[in-house]
């Protein structure tokens, strides 16, 4: 995916706020990129545009060599369903619904045969190491476990890109590490493209590349020399 001179502004009454002021970068298939920046730097807005949850105000966004604003509503729904997996800061699991059913949620809209759902969901749950919690409801899980369920849900349709929006923001550092290890494993072993949003350098260092934003503009775009894994750096 590639963005060129991407801008986004919000109109609130008379006042128009420019959140993204012209961003350019390219993310290749299979990359693990962290987008960093203080709050208000526009990193969440960027993620929403890249994840087809919002539309850009100006500039270009190419997803799989097609302009984002050329996708129809139904195509956007299909991209969200098949090509993209989302992990949110606040988990967003359905209450009073089991882990298995939560993970199945994207499959409902996938058009896949129902016989396949159970197997796919169980596979995804196994990938995040929660098979023993499969029939629990979100209220019975710890924060870290909830986020791993959300990762399994993002994974279940085998998407190209996984977007993680401050996935460790609501977690203590120990659960945060476990969640990040799971995300890193998905990238390393299954080859998913991962775009991670965070304001912590510690978390960002799990990625291969860090894009820093400030006031809606790219401040720096650097390779991570010492990647973190299992809480330690890879040599």
């Amino acid at each position, binding site marked *: 995916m590639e963005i060129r001179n991407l801008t986004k502004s919000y109109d609130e009454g008379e006042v128009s706020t420019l959140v993204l002021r012209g961003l350019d970068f390219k993310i290749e298939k299979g990359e693990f990129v962290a987008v960093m920046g203080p709050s208000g730097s526009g990193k969440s807005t960027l993620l929403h545009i890249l994840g087809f949850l919002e539309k850009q105000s100006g500039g270009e966004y190419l997803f799989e060599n097609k302009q984002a604003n050329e996708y129809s509503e139904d195509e956007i*729904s*299909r991209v969200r369903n098949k090509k993209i997996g989302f992990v949110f800061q606040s988990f967003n699991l359905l209450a009073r619904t089991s882990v298995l059913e939560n993970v199945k949620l994207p499959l409902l809209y996938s058009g896949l045969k129902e016989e396949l759902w159970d197997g796919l969901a169980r596979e995804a749950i196994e990938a995040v190491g929660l098979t023993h919690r499969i029939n629990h409801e979100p209220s019975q899980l710890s924060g870290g476990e909830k986020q791993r369920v959300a990762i399994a849900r993002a994974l279940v*349709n085998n998407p190209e890109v996984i977007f993680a929006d401050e996935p460790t923001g609501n977690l203590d550092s120990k659960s945060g590490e476990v969640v990040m290890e799971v995300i890193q494993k998905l990238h390393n072993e299954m080859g998913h493209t991962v775009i991670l949003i965070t304001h912590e350098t510690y978390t960002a260092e799990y990625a291969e590349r860090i894009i820093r934003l400030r006031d809606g503009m790219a401040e720096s775009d650097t390779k991570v020399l010492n990647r973190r894994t299992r809480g330690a750096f890879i040599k």
Partner: protein
Amino acid sequence: MPFYHAIRIALAGLKTNKTRSALTILGIVIGVTAIIMVVSLGQGAQNLILGQIEGLGARVVGIIPGRQPKGPTDILATLTASLKERDFIALQRKENVPHAQDVIPLVFGSETAYYDGQTYRLTIFGGNEAMADIYNAYPEPGRTITIDDVRGGADVVILGKTAADELSQGQSLLGERIKIKGRNFLVIGILPEKGAGSLINFDESAFMPYTTAQRYIFGIKYYNRIIVRADSEENVASTVEDVKATLRELHGITDPDKDDFGIETQADTLETVGTILNTLTVFLAMVAAISLVVGGVGIMNIMLVSVTDRTREIGLRKALGATNRNILTQFLLEAIILTGIGGIVGILLGAGLSFAISLVISNVFGLAWTFTFPVGAAFLGILISTVVGLIFGLYPARKASYMSPIDALRHE
């Protein structure tokens, strides 16, 4: 997405909010229950009343005095005394009405009876010896009115059960004399209890020879009715024609529009009463149907709350790939399933309650009441409640489907 997936999603949505779902359908349940009960009980009442009219016998032809009203200005024309003794005599002649088995002149009205310091207001029927048979009113104990009683204008009376009990305060009145209009009447019979299940309330009535009633009670020379009973059902139509011809000739009428009498057969009565009862039932069912609309507004209300409540869920579903149509379908189906279930529960509840009431009526009150399941009303109930769900669910469902996923996810 296959339709049954959509149904499963909607069902799952309803299941996670059981209490709210149950409360939501309450309005629909009550509405459909009311419709089913009104129609079922209305039909029961209709069967009962029509059954009683049929009980009078299909062979009975009633002649009513006076011109039958053709419009509002004609009302006064009915209050005439056009049926007299010569009509009665003429109708009895075989050459006039060959298929008449019985001809009964009838006079009736209310009077007070006195016995041993007790008073009772009764309805007095004056008739002849055939009256007991036509109304199936045979005294027990006692005897019926004889042809001699009629010829002689005898001061005899047969009392209904309630009337006799009220006057006598418990002891038997048979052979005693009661006073009506200052004249003493010998009680020759007491009717067994008939209950309220008849068109004429026999229990509060008294029977006597029409000659006696005309002369001493009402002071009139005409009849309130003449009843003709045909010898068979097939001959009712020809008997009606014979009666008309006889009376027209006697009254010098050539234009049928100027008839100073009216004819009533059982078929006419059945039709008239049936129409009235039907109209009443339809009217009541419509009143009950209004409550369905109220129930529908309740559904809309709750669905709107539900959409606001589940904004994050809607945003999540969209972020995971649900299309606007998926969301619209989900919320619309939730509303329709809710109202559909409400309709079914209402039908079962309405049928159950109607059945219980019919048991009470037939056992406690001893009426020939039958339970009918109103199939038409049941279909209508399901249909209306589903349509209500569709209409009142559409607005909240559309509102849900047009939400922007990111705004919805940010919703607190």
